[in-house]
């Protein structure tokens, strides 16, 4: 009986831990012909036009980078506000409710944010911005709502760790709430803040629905925040599954591979950051 259980354990662990490897293998398998086909550099050119044999992924890379960065920027301000106020300035009952509210928000599906934005924000944006409602700016704004709860929770937990240990001592020395935040918590949470930002940025990069529905999906390289853009994730979602053998289709796997590599780097960086957190 125990042996059966042991076997079950081992099989489970083997299967689940190797999934990542399996995923990377499949991504590589499908994009290998592109990588080793001699024209690899082509995929980093600036134009995607399969009908004319242009397979540059750069417009999408730029799209992802700009939307994710701007969204993270927007989200940082609101996340910080929530984290600080919940930790220190709001009455306990309100703070406790808000914390739970944050956890709830982090589970709201992103497609809902995109859907509401489409009917509430975009018509308004189109009015104000002369028809440029579906753009990097709008998408970043909506995306910031999606990643905001995650960053807030991360920040809040980082701050709490410091507060737990030293709040009493600092207060006994006459620190006001502002002092406590700026001179104690912020000062000793630098790694936590950085981790939260990286974590939020990674989530923004990985989001599909908001970019797909709000950013416009144009293939041109965006020149300004009001231009329409396409992200790597939306690019994959817009699969035109007519020809599984085509280069265009395989290039989607290259996009997937890029995203996978990005995740890998992010996780590695976060591990290093949180590991070397002293005390």
């Amino acid at each position, binding site marked *: 009986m125990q042996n059966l259980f042991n076997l079950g354990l081992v099989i489970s662990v083997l299967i689940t831990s190797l999934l990542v490897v399996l995923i990377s293998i499949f991504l590589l398998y499908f994009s290998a012909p592109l990588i080793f086909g001699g024209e690899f550099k082509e995929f980093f050119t600036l134009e995607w036009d399969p009908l004319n044999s242009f397979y540059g992924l750069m417009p999408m890379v730029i799209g992802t980078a700009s939307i994710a960065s701007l969204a993270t920027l927007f989200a940082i301000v609101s996340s910080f506000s929530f984290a600080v106020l919940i930790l220190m300035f709001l009455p306990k009952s309100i703070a406790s409710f808000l914390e739970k509210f944050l956890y709830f928000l982090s589970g709201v599906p992103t497609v809902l944010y995109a859907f509401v934005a489409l009917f509430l924000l975009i018509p308004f944006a189109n009015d104000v911005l002369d028809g440029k409602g579906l753009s990097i700016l709008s998408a970043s704004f909506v995306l910031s709502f999606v990643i905001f709860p995650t960053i807030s929770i991360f920040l809040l937990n980082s701050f709490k760790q*410091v507060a737990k*240990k*030293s709040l*009493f*001592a*600092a*207060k*006994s*020395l*006459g*620190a*006001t709430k502002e*002092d406590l935040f700026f*001179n*104690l918590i912020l*000062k*000793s949470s630098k790694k936590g803040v950085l981790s939260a930002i990286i974590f939020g940025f990674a989530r923004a990069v990985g989001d599909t629905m908001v970019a797909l529905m709000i950013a416009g999906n144009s293939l041109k390289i965006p020149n300004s925040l009001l231009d329409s853009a396409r992200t790597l994730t939306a690019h994959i979602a817009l699969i035109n599954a007519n020809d599984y053998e085509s280069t265009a289709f395989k290039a989607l796997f290259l996009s997937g591979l890029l995203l996978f590599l990005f995740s890998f780097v992010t996780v590695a960086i976060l591990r290093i950051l949180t590991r070397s957190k*002293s*005390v």
Partner: protein
Amino acid sequence: MSEIIKIKNLNLSYGKKEVLKGINLNIFKNHITAISGPSGIGKSSLLLVLNQMIREFERAKCSGEVLFNEDGEWRDILKFKEKELPALRKNIVYVSQHPDLLPFSIFENLYFGLKLQGIKKDSAKSMIKEALEKTFLYEEIKDRLHGDASMLSGGQQQRLILARALVLKPKILLLDEPTSSLNEELSSKVEDMLVKLKRETTIVMISHFKSQILKIADSVLNLA
């Protein structure tokens, strides 16, 4: 002999448990007032009432009056509003029984209270050196001022948090077992230092060393 704090009929309870009952005490300026009694009887809690850090404990309830003579005016600190407390705690500084270091370097630990009062780092350096010398710590750590404070030994940490309070030159110093981790020689030196210090600062201290109390206290409150 003028009083600086008058405690009138102070009661403290934690939820349903009564910790302090009917405490009356006059604390005189530039005196060393000692508080003694068996463990768990509420000595530390009494100190925490004096700097109102007792409010950090949700279930703690105080009644009575604790009058503090601040620049000629008598005010009941039990009735202080939340925003008046940081200023109070810069005048009445508490040194905990267990070293509660801030997650910074030795220097930053000592500088923290001064920074709150707007004192620049350069001016602070001499004040910090003075405080470290008073607690007989300077020679031991002068070369690692910017090292992590948590690397110090127990006795060194205890002297560090004492220095952290001394550097603020408070009106009243609340000491909770300040020499419990120190050997006889160091304890004696600190006791002598406290006697000299009372000229500038009023001291209220908890001690479970009878000899210490006999040696340096001007008055004693026994909570038994």
